[in-house]
């Protein structure tokens, strides 16, 4: 069995050799009153990589991803996405940067007063000019829905779809902007094992088709095993362990082992 320290050292050396990090997070801290959620979290996401952050409920995964997308302000630390400092970015520049980042919310977060078509058209309201003057919205909507296999649901309301279908429509909504990075917040939570598997396969397919990098937050070990190129285990708001799935399952550390039981 490899020790945790050996794996960490090996990954640090690999990261030093690679300079194409598109997300750099350093010493991230976030507290809510006396509850210290993030206590100096660090990470790097490289171009074309699928990075999985695993942690127990309440370990600060969702807070971390919300800090990354600018929905929460961290108390301290650096968040650099594609060369831009998220923490000090003005609203307009932040909105521009967000167009390059897709975000799949835990509960899908589809607008339930709008049809599937309107849900997919919504992100284009602000960023229409990115796709030129002759933009064909209908074509873009159908293309995004086809890539998740749900073109036939275009005129349905979100309430008429199953949980798995809602998750796939939400994924189509992130894809319509052709993002460079996709953040997945618990992509398989609340879904049955078969639907979870379908979503994982779809995530893999999308990464190959759209050449995106992905940051996936999950506590689903199966999801992490299939999708991850690299994993970070988050414990008490800090990165406790880092490595590939195959490396981490061999680590002889009780806290790491607890994740894979």
């Amino acid at each position, binding site marked *: 069995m490899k020790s945790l320290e050996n794996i960490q050292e090996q990954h640090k050396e690999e990261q030093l050799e690679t300079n194409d990090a598109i997300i750099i997070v350093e010493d991230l801290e976030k507290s809510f009153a006396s509850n210290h959620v993030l206590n100096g979290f660090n990470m790097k996401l490289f171009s074309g990589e699928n990075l999985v952050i695993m942690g127990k409920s309440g370990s600060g995964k969702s807070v971390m991803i*919300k800090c990354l*997308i600018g*929905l929460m302000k961290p108390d301290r630390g650096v968040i650099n996405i594609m060369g831009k400092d998220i923490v000090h970015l003005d609203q307009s520049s932040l*909105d*521009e940067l*967000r*167009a390059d*980042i897709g*975000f799949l*919310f*835990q*509960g899908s*977060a*589809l*607008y*339930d*007063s709008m049809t599937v078509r309107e849900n997919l058209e*919504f*992100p284009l*309201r*602000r*960023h229409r000019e990115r796709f030129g003057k002759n933009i064909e919205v209908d074509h873009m909507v159908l293309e995004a829905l086809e890539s998740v296999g749900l073109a036939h649901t275009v005129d349905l309301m979100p309430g008429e779809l199953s949980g798995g279908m809602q998750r796939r429509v939400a994924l189509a909504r992130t894809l319509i*902007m052709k993002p460079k990075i996709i953040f997945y917040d618990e992509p398989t939570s609340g879904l049955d094992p078969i639907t979870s598997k379908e979503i994982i396969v779809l995530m893999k397919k999308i990464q190959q088709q759209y050449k995106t990098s992905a940051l996936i937050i999950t506590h689903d070990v199966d999801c992490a095993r299939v999708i991850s190129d690299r994993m970070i285990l988050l414990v008490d708001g800090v990165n406790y362990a880092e490595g590939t799935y195959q490396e981490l399952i061999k680590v002889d550390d009780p806290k790491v082992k607890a994740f894979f039981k």
Partner: protein
Amino acid sequence: MMLSEKSIGSLISSFFKQIGALTFFAGHFFKEAIQPPYEFNELLKQCYSVGNRSLPLVSLTGFIIGLVLTLQTRPTLQEFGAVSWMPSMVGISIVREIGPVIIALICAGRVASGIGAELGSMRVTEQIDAMEVSGTNPFKFLVVTRITATTLMVPLLVIYGDVLALYGSFLVEHFKGDVSARLFFNQVFNALNFSDLIPAVIKSVFFGFAIGLVGCFKGYYCEKGTVGVGLAANTAVVMSSLLIFILDFIAVIISDIFYDL
């Protein structure tokens, strides 16, 4: 004893905190309302939702107010031989006071609770976050349009409710006192001045603003999951009804000063 003093203290402190937060929210509304881009389509949709969907309730309530007020007052006026004053009395009381307050309270029950629940549910299901991530300002899209819609539509509903209340009153007078429509409405309009109509319309504008403001405030900052959504809807009705009475009191004092002048 100490405990009750503490709880009274915390109640007062929470009341002033709410007032402060509501004032800040109103300030934010005015700032966002004057800055482009303007969400005209969403505003029209909200006007339709607030206005058209409140029509059946306002119609029924307005009509019944007129009927009941006339039926209840008639015997007393008959005792004093002053039945001929009925149209003037009903006209003034409905237009100046009863119409605006009752219709605004009906709207507080239907509209403020609806807005509170809708925005609250959007908050807890992360739809508001999804909107922000997609580059649309959710405050402008959801809050500014709803407050503007209630501010525009409540005065129109009040005028419509007043007309139906007067019609209800006329029906009672017609069947009980054999009064013609021409005589009834002549007396009503002879008794009414612009100094009765204008303050009533102005205070209806403030009532509409208060209903939208409180509904949006409670829903937009909803917490604690589905329990919070129910609480947001409930407190939106209570707080907006209370605000309607406070605003009415202020309006009566101000219009009294103008009458004296």
